[in-house]
C-alpha cells in the first residue's frame, strides 16, 4: 500500500451548520496501478485529490504515505519528494521553456537526481512525446496537449512513485485525451508508478485498473 486515506472529513462551516464535502472517506492505493476517481462537479473529487496531494489538510482523519502520516512527514516535504501533481489547467510557468519547467522541481526535490539534470529533462520530455526543438520553446507557444505532456514530465521529474492528476484531459480533445491516458497506463504498468486520476469521464474510468465513484462526499467502488 503506497497511499491510504483513513476517515477523512472535510467540510465548510455555513453558519452553525457544517456542509460536508468528504465524510468519513477511506481509500487505499497500490503501486503499479492506474486508478480513477469519478464524480460530477461538486462531488468532492478535487478536494479529495488536494488532501491526497497535501495541498490542503483534512478536518479529521489521516493520509498515510507508505504507512507514514503525511502530516508528520510535512506537507511541503511530501509534495517535494513523494508526489507529482498534474492539474487540469497545466499550471506551467509561462515565461520558462518546456525544459526549464521540468528543471524546476528537480532543483526543489531532495530525491537523488542524476547530475546532468538538463539531459534527464530532455529525455523525459522526449519519452512523453516532446522533441528537443519543442522542449526549448516557451510553454505558451505549445498546444494544450503538448503543455499537458510537459506537466506530466514535470510530475515525473523528481522520480516519485505517486502521480496525482486533477482532470488532466479536461481541456483536451478526444484524440489527445487518449494519448495522455496511454501515458498514464504506461507509467503504472511499465514503470510501477501509482497513478491516481480524478475525472468526470466514464471513458477514462473504464480504462483504469480500479475506479471509484464519489457522490455527495461518499466514496463507492465503480463497476
Amino acid at each position, binding site marked *: 500500500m503506497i497511499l491510504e486515506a483513513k476517515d477523512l472529513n472535510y467540510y465548510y462551516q455555513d453558519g452553525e451548520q457544517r456542509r460536508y464535502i468528504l465524510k468519513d472517506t477511506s481509500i487505499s492505493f497500490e503501486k503499479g496501478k492506474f486508478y480513477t476517481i469519478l464524480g460530477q462537479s461538486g462531488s468532492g473529487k*478535487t478536494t479529495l*485529490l*488536494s488532501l491526497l*496531494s497535501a*495541498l*490542503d489538510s483534512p478536518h479529521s482523519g489521516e493520509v498515510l504515505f507508505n504507512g507514514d502520516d503525511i502530516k508528520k512527514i510535512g506537507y*511541503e*516535504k*511530501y*509534495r*517535494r*519528494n513523494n508526489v507529482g*501533481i498534474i*492539474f487540469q*489547467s497545466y*499550471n*506551467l*510557468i*509561462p*515565461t*520558462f521553456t518546456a525544459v*526549464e519547467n521540468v*528543471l*524546476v*522541481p*528537480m*532543483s*526543489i*526535490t531532495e530525491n537523488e537526481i542524476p547530475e546532468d*539534470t538538463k539531459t534527464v529533462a530532455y529525455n523525459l520530455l522526449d519519452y512523453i512525446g516532446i522533441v528537443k526543438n519543442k522542449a526549448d520553446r516557451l510553454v505558451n507557444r505549445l498546444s494544450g496537449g503538448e503543455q499537458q505532456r510537459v506537466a506530466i514530465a514535470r510530475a515525473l521529474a523528481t522520480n516519485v512513485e505517486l502521480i496525482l492528476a*486533477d482532470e488532466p484531459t479536461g481541456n483536451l480533445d478526444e484524440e489527445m485525451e487518449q494519448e495522455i491516458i496511454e501515458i498514464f497506463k504506461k507509467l503504472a504498468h511499465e514503470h510501477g508508478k501509482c497513478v491516481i486520476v480524478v475525472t468526470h469521464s466514464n471513458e477514462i474510468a473504464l480504462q483504469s485498473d480500479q475506479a471509484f465513484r464519489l457522490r455527495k462526499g461518499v466514496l463507492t467502488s465503480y463497476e
Partner: protein
Amino acid sequence: MNFIKRGFLGITRKKGKSLILLAVIFILGNLISGAISIQQATGNVESTIKERLGTAATIDIDYDEWDAMSESELESLEMEEISVDLIKQIGELSYVKYYDYSMSTWLGSESVESYHDEESDVDYIVEGPSTDFRLKGINYAPVIDFEEGKAELADGRVFTDDEIEKGTSVAIISQKLADENNLNVGDTFTLANDVYTYDEETGEDDIVNSRDVVLEIIGLFEPSEAKKETDENSDSGMMILTDDMDYHNTVYVPNEIVIDETQFNWEEYLKADEELAEMMEGEDESFEYYEPIYYLNNPEDIEAFTEEVKPLLPELYSVISASDQYDNIAGPIESMSKLAKYVLIVAVIATVLITGLVVLLFLRDRKRELGIYLSLGEKRSRVVGQILIEVMVVAVIGITLSLFSGNLLAQQVSDTMMKADDNQDEYFEEYYYEGINTDLTAEDVMDSYEVTLNSSYVLGFYGVGLVTILISTIIPLIYIVRLNPKKILM
C-alpha cells in the same frame, strides 16, 4: 534551476516589468542620493570649518545678555571676577587638552628697538609714551601658542615648570626682534616699566617712576607658515600688518613677572594720583585679570564642555568658543541641511510605499507562478528569496545609476541655492579673543561646501537605498507567505 537562477530569469524574461521597477527605483533613488549628497556636504562643511576654527574656548561676559538687561538691573548688578581657582577647576575637565590663563602688559625700552616691517609702506604714528613690547604671561610652560602651531620655536627652549612657578626672569622673543637687536639665546635685554600720569593742564603724560625689567632670552620663536599664509590671504591688510608686528614684538615671560610689573605700575600710579587712591581706598585692589584659554581634545567636545562649564560660572559669564562663529555664519548651509533632511525622509517614505506597491502589483500578476512553486514543495523562504533577488538586483542597478546622477543633481541644486543665498547681504558679528580664530567669513563656509562622490557617500547611499528597498518588499513578502497553492491552482 534553483531559486537564484529563477530570480535572474525572472528579471530577464520579464523585461518590461523589470524596466518599470528600475525606472521607479532610479527616480526615487535620485531623490535619496541627492539628499544624502547634500547632507554629507553640509556635514563636511561643519566638521571642516569647526576643525579650522579649532578647539579653543574662553570664558567671558555674555554681552548679549548684558545688553538685554535693563538699567535698574545693571545698577544692582555686582559683577564677580573669574577666579584662578575656577579657571583651574575648568581646566581639569576631561574635555580639556591643555589650558592657560595669563595677563599681559605693555612695556617700552630704550635699549631694544621694536620690530617694524621695512617692506611695508604704511606709516603709523603712535601718540603718547612708547610701549612697543607686549609682555605675555605664561602659566603653561610648553607655551600653548607653540603647541597649537601659531608659532614655532626657532632656537633655544621653552619654559620649565620651575621658572613658571618662581617667576624667573627669562623670556622667549621673536626671531625678527632678536635679529633687529642682534640678540641671541642666552643674551639679556632690558625693558622699562614706566609709570605715567596724565597731566590735564599740559595734556601730556609724565613719567612718575620707572624700573628696569631685565630678561634672559631662553628661546626664539617664528610665527608659523600657516599663520602667515592665512594672514596674507586676508582682506584686512592693515589690521593683519599691525597684528603681525605686534606678534613679533611679543615677549613670552612667566606670568609671575607680568603680575609683578603690573602690581608695581598700579601701586606707583596710585601713589601719584591721590584722588584715585582715595577712591580706591577700601576697595578690593585686585589688579589681576585673567583671560583663560582652553584647548579641547576634539571640536565635537565644545557642546558638552559648554554644558558642563556653564553651571560653574558666575552670573552673566558664558563660554565663548571658536565654533560659536560657525553658528552665526552657517545659516544657508544649515537651512540646506534641514531641507535635505526633510527631502530624505520624504523620499525614503515614498520609496517604501511606491516600490512596495509596484512589487505587490507585479506579484499579484505572478500569483499562479508562485503557487506552482509552492505546489512543487518549494520552501516559502526560497520563494521569498527568489523575489528578493529579482527586486534587489534591479534595485542595485537603479541605485548605482542614481548614485551618480543624484550626486550630479545635488551639485546643481546646491549651486543654485548657494547663489540665491549669496545674493542676500548678510552681516556677521565679529569678535576677538586671544587664541580664537575668528577671521572666517560666509564665503569661507560656501567655499568649503563641496558635493563629492566619496566612499562614505557611496556606502551611505547604498546602505539607505538597499535598506529602503528591503523594507518596501516586506509587504509583498507577507503576501507570499500567506499564499495558499490549492486556492490558486485548483
